[in-house]
Every structure is written in structure tokens, then in C-alpha cells.
């Protein structure tokens, strides 16, 4: 079955991303399920001209995860809790429950400049806008913008 193939190939990658954004195990599982249902039901709207299938799937999973964190943050009125704190919390949590298939991440991440990693994590996994990051990290927007580009350039170099 096509769905089984899709799931076997992409579930771990998507679950990794979802878990990065939504630390709670159970919620992350729910989001993964909802993401796959959405992917499955909206498969017809995937346009290969606009990018790879994985990119499309990642965007669905990311958006659902970000929507979840935002609505949850709104509902629980934990607005006072710093967003960067929550990302840091993710990092901390993950470092404790690091699964075996993420071992390669540690060595990789060590090569990436910490401020770059922070930038990528906030923007890519955290669903932050650059303006939000600017406020959050107390950095001028221009700096955030140049740092974003520099971070992705280094990431690209490292992954070459």
C-alpha cells in the first residue's frame, strides 16, 4: 500500500522534526498522526514543480507542530514564558532522551556555531519569525537577518 511506503520512509524524519518543536511525547505522536492524515488526504495538492515531496511533507508537519505550540501557548496563557526558554528546554530534554538514531547529530551539531544553531532551531523548528527572534534574543533585526543567512551558509558547507 502506498501509505505504508510513505510512512516507512518518512515517519522517523517527520517525527524527529515534530518532536523537536513539540517536546511532549504524546502530543508529538498525535501531531505526527494528524500530519500523515493531512498528507494522505491532500496528496492531490502536492505540486512536484514547487519542490520535492519531502519538502512538502516537512512543511505540513512543521506547520502543524508550530500551530500546536502557538495555540497551546495561547490557551495556557504561558505568554510570559520566554520562547527561547522553551526551545532551550527542548534542547535540554532531548539531550537526556537522545535516541540511538540521533547520535550522529551530536558530533554534527558541535561543528555548527552555537549562535547559528540557535538561529536555525528557532526559525526552522521553532516556527519563529525573524522579528520574533530579534525581540527574543534582543538583537537588531538586521543582525538576525545576516546571521540567518550565515547560519544556513555554514549548514550548507557542513553538509556538503
Amino acid at each position, binding site marked *: 500500500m502506498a501509505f505504508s511506503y510513505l510512512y516507512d520512509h518518512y*515517519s*522517523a524524519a517527520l517525527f524527529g522534526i515534530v518532536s523537536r518543536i513539540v517536546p511532549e511525547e504524546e502530543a508529538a505522536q498525535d501531531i505526527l498522526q494528524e500530519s500523515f492524515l493531512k498528507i494522505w488526504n491532500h496528496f492531490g495538492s502536492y505540486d512536484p514543480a514547487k519542490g520535492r515531496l519531502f519538502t512538502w511533507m516537512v512543511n505540513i508537519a512543521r506547520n502543524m507542530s508550530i500551530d500546536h505550540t502557538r495555540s497551546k501557548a495561547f490557551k495556557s496563557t504561558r505568554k510570559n514564558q520566554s520562547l527561547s526558554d522553551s526551545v532551550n528546554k527542548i534542547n535540554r530534554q532531548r539531550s537526556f532522551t537522545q535516541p540511538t538514531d540521533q547520535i550522529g547529530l551530536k558530533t554534527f551539531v558541535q561543528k555548527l556555531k552555537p549562535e547559528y544553531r540557535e538561529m536555525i532551531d528557532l526559525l526552522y523548528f521553532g516556527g519563529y519569525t525573524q522579528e520574533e527572534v530579534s525581540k527574543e534574543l534582543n538583537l537588531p533585526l538586521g543582525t538576525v537577518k545576516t546571521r540567518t543567512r550565515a547560519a544556513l551558509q555554514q*549548514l550548507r558547507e557542513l553538509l556538503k
Partner: protein
Amino acid sequence: MDIQAYISSGIIERYALGICTAAETDELEKLALLHPEINREVNEIRSSLESYAMKHVLSPPEALKENLMKRIRKEPLEEHGKIVSMNTKQNALNAGSGHIHYAAAAATVLLLISAALNFVFYGNWKSSEKNLAVLTEEKRQIAEQLHIQKASYTEAMNDLAVLKNPDMVKMEMKGKEPAPDAQALVYCNFKTNEIFLDVKKLPTPPDSMQYQFWAIVKGKAIDGGMIDLCPLTDTCGIHKMNPVADAHAFAISLEKKGGMPEPKGQIYLAFGI
């Protein structure tokens, strides 16, 4: 537009991160179609982000897949009615296009048959045209023959009329010294002075010579005309000669071609002499 400046502006990174505004996204997707270098940049940044994401792979619990599979199977069931109705529509469309395909196939077959028949009919027409030409020619020949037959029939009827005339006197000429077997009949109407000659048998004359007919009136030979023998039968049919009054004897002599005022050559046939 300075493409390099656009690339280094950081918009592609923001696009790959999914934090562009809708307007920026539109512009970038249009530019990516026009400029391959933008497209390449987008793909590279995206794939490095995806590779980074892949480094976070985390296997979800086994139960999750089973649960999802159950839900997937259940959901299409709810939509089964819709699917059927869509299929019906699809079938209707297919049926429609099926008719078109059938019609197209039928039209093609008919065209081929028509072309084949054209070929056959053209061949038939050509041979018909040929046959018609042959038949027309045959008809012409038959008409010509009919004309000849008619002419010879008229001639025969005239001859018969001559012979049947009660005023006509028939005289049998006798073969002389050079050709004792020679035979000829003279018909003479003494009322009208008409003379007919019917040569039955006479030797073929040499090329330079011709038989001449003479009517004898009071011991004097009068030219009755030249005799043209049919080269195949050495006869002349019933031949009308020059009218001569009061003739009491007839003779045929072999003379120089064209004839003589009075007989010089040998007498071949004679009557009353």
C-alpha cells in the same frame, strides 16, 4: 535585476525556512522559474535544512503506524459513497470518451475501406474506359462492315433486278483459243440498250494488259468498256458496261492497259461471232 544581489539578500534562506510573506513567496517562485541559479540556490538551502532535520530522526512507536493505518482505512470507507459517485462521473466521462474513441476507430476503418474501394473503383473505371474504347472501335468496325454489307446488298439487289427484268436477254460467251475454259454472261436489254457483263472465269491478265469488252454492231466493234477483274477470283460480278444499240455480237479481247479504240489483241471470249 541583479540576481546575485537578490540571492545574497537572504530572501532565499527565509523562503526555505518558510518565513516569507505571501508576496515574497510569489515573487521568488516566479523568479526561480526564470533564473536557474535562484532555483538551484533554493534547492540547496532546502536540502541542507532537510538534511539537518534528518539528523534528528526519531522512530515513532510501532503502534502509531497501526493506528494510522486503521484510520486511513476507515476514512476512505466514509467517503466510499463519494468515491462511487465520482467513479460514476468518471465512468460517464470514460463512456463518453469511449464513444469518441469508438467513433474515431470506426471513422478510421471507414476511411480505409473508402480508400480501398476508391482504388478498386478507379481500377474498374480505368478498365471500363478501356473496354469502352475497345467496344467503340468494334462498333465503328461493325458499322463500317454493315455499311459495306448494305452497299453490297444494294448492289446484289440491283444485279438481281437486272437479271429479273423480263426485257433482259441473257447470252453465254464461249472461251476462245487462248482460254477455252473462260466463261462470261452478257445481259442485254434491247429496249434500253443497257448491257451487263458477268465474268465467271478468265485468266489473270499481265500487269500491263487489261480485258476490253466489245459490242459488234453491223460488223463493227464498238468499245463497251474496260473490265476490272477482282484479283482474288478473276471475276467482276455483274458489271454495267457502256450502252450500245443494236449490238448482235459481243467479244472480250486482251488489250493494252487503258483500252484501245478498236480490238488489236487476242479474243478470249465471244458471243455471236
